[in-house]
């Protein structure tokens, strides 16, 4: 089996898949904790559908670089959605449901009216579930992904303390002079970038799993913000690597295998948490 893996590693596309997988898993887990705690778990789902719609538009317009359209559209939607989430008069969850389902339907409609290839069902399936796309990345996409991931990690580290303060108690942070609005905008923009990145790895239907599972798993075991963040980053990377390895060896789709690994990790962590609590007293 190691021989088989070694053989696979000679192919650049397999190496690319690993690099991109690890980077995306790392980024998506970092903000997962914030999203879960701020009750924004659903936003990942909504945004991924928006990104799907934008991707369909980009495909129809035959843009050479789809990112140029998808990224700004998703960032703007993220900002708008977080805005409505703050405004008590408009139901935030309803707005998200509307936008996400609308974008999904619109995207599929466009792909149907202007088919770009003969295998429409296959195209749709791979954007929704990211079936094979991870193994077809070009060098340019890998570089872009690496740059964006490094930017996300840097932003997260530099603003870590502010993000913690705003997540724990936004009112207090605002009252004592933290620019909470700017902080929320930053969080929204970073989330959008992560979603767009993660579409390559697991497809748009499974992104939420990538963002939320590691955070929830880590919260079962640890009880400080820092340890939860670090643990969820580790878990996410481990699950992504093992998911990709299994998918190569067993020939399963990469995205759903990674998510399955995340689910398994959640089960293990829940168990560990129960045992820890049991022995704790």
């Amino acid at each position: 089996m190691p021989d088989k893996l070694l053989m696979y590693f000679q192919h650049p596309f397999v190496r690319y898949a690993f690099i991109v997988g690890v980077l995306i898993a790392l980024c998506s887990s970092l903000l997962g904790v914030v999203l879960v705690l701020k009750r924004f778990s659903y936003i990942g789902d909504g945004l991924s559908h928006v990104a799907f719609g934008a991707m369909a538009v980009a495909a129809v317009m035959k843009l050479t670089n789809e990112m140029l359209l998808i990224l700004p559209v998703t960032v703007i939607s993220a900002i708008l959605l977080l805005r409505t989430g703050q405004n008590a008069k408009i139901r935030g969850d309803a707005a998200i449901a509307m936008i996400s389902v609308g974008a999904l339907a619109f995207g599929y409609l466009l792909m149907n009216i202007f088919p770009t290839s003969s295998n429409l069902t296959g195209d749709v399936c791979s954007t929704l579930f990211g079936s094979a796309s991870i193994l077809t990345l070009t060098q340019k996409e890998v570089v872009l992904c690496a740059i964006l991931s490094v930017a996300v990690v840097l932003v997260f580290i530099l603003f870590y303390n502010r993000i913690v303060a705003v997540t724990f108690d936004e009112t207090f942070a605002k009252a004592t002079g933290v620019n909470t609005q700017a902080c929320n905008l930053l969080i929204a923009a970073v989330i959008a970038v992560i979603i767009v990145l993660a579409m390559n790895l697991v497809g748009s239907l499974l992104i939420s799993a990538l963002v939320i599972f590691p955070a929830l798993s880590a919260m079962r075991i640890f009880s400080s913000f820092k340890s939860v963040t670090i643990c969820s980053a580790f878990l996410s990377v481990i699950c992504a690597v093992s998911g990709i390895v299994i998918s190569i060896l067993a020939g399963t789709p990469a995205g759903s295998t990674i998510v399955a690994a995340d689910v398994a990790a959640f089960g293990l962590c829940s168990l560990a948490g129960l045992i820890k609590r049991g022995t704790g007293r």
Partner: protein
Amino acid sequence: MALLEASDLSLGYDSRYIVKGLDFSVNSGDFLCIVGENGSGKTTLMKTLLGLIKPFGGQILTGDGLKKKDIGYLPQHTALQKDFPASVREIVLSGCQGRFAFRPFYGKAEKQLAFENMRRMGIEELKDSCYSKLSGGQQQRILLARALCAAEKLLLLDEPVSGLDPKVTAQMYELIRDLNKEGLTIIMISHDINAAVRYASHILHMGVTCFFGTREEYLKSDTGKLFLMLKRGGEACA
């Protein structure tokens, strides 16, 4: 110039007025106590002073170079999720947040300050515990330590002793008075009228008729006499 000066202030939510025509001022070093019945708008006033809610009318002027980052605040309720993973240390440290404008991380000074305030509140041995698993009184002390970290010039306390046992309550009042003596300006909401007239330098009474003045003036005023009598009478009966 006063640290805070409110003139003809009207407060409310949505389109409903709660208080109209409030006038008062707070000078550096004052200890203002806000008293009044449930629902008279004390918390609303404090949130307006903090800039969390916009006033309906009137204005709040700040002086002596008072900035938001110099203010510490203890909210009446902090709605937190049950399973929020945050250690006591992390929460107290987050009070130092406003202190650094562009620096990304906490320095030695902030960590020292957080530790001192945890010691003051007697919670240093809890520093690695999970906040959401502590008792209400312990949580209150943690939030007070956080407020102290943020308060460089002004400390706003919304019912700081609610949920504390009598011993800690007494300690808390002593601590607040010591802080005040060290030069920190304090605005405190309290239902404990005895503590209010004992520790405060000024009293703002909110209700159907509002009263603002020094402690001595309040004790002589009709509002004050009536309220004191009602409260003390009520406590004597109970």
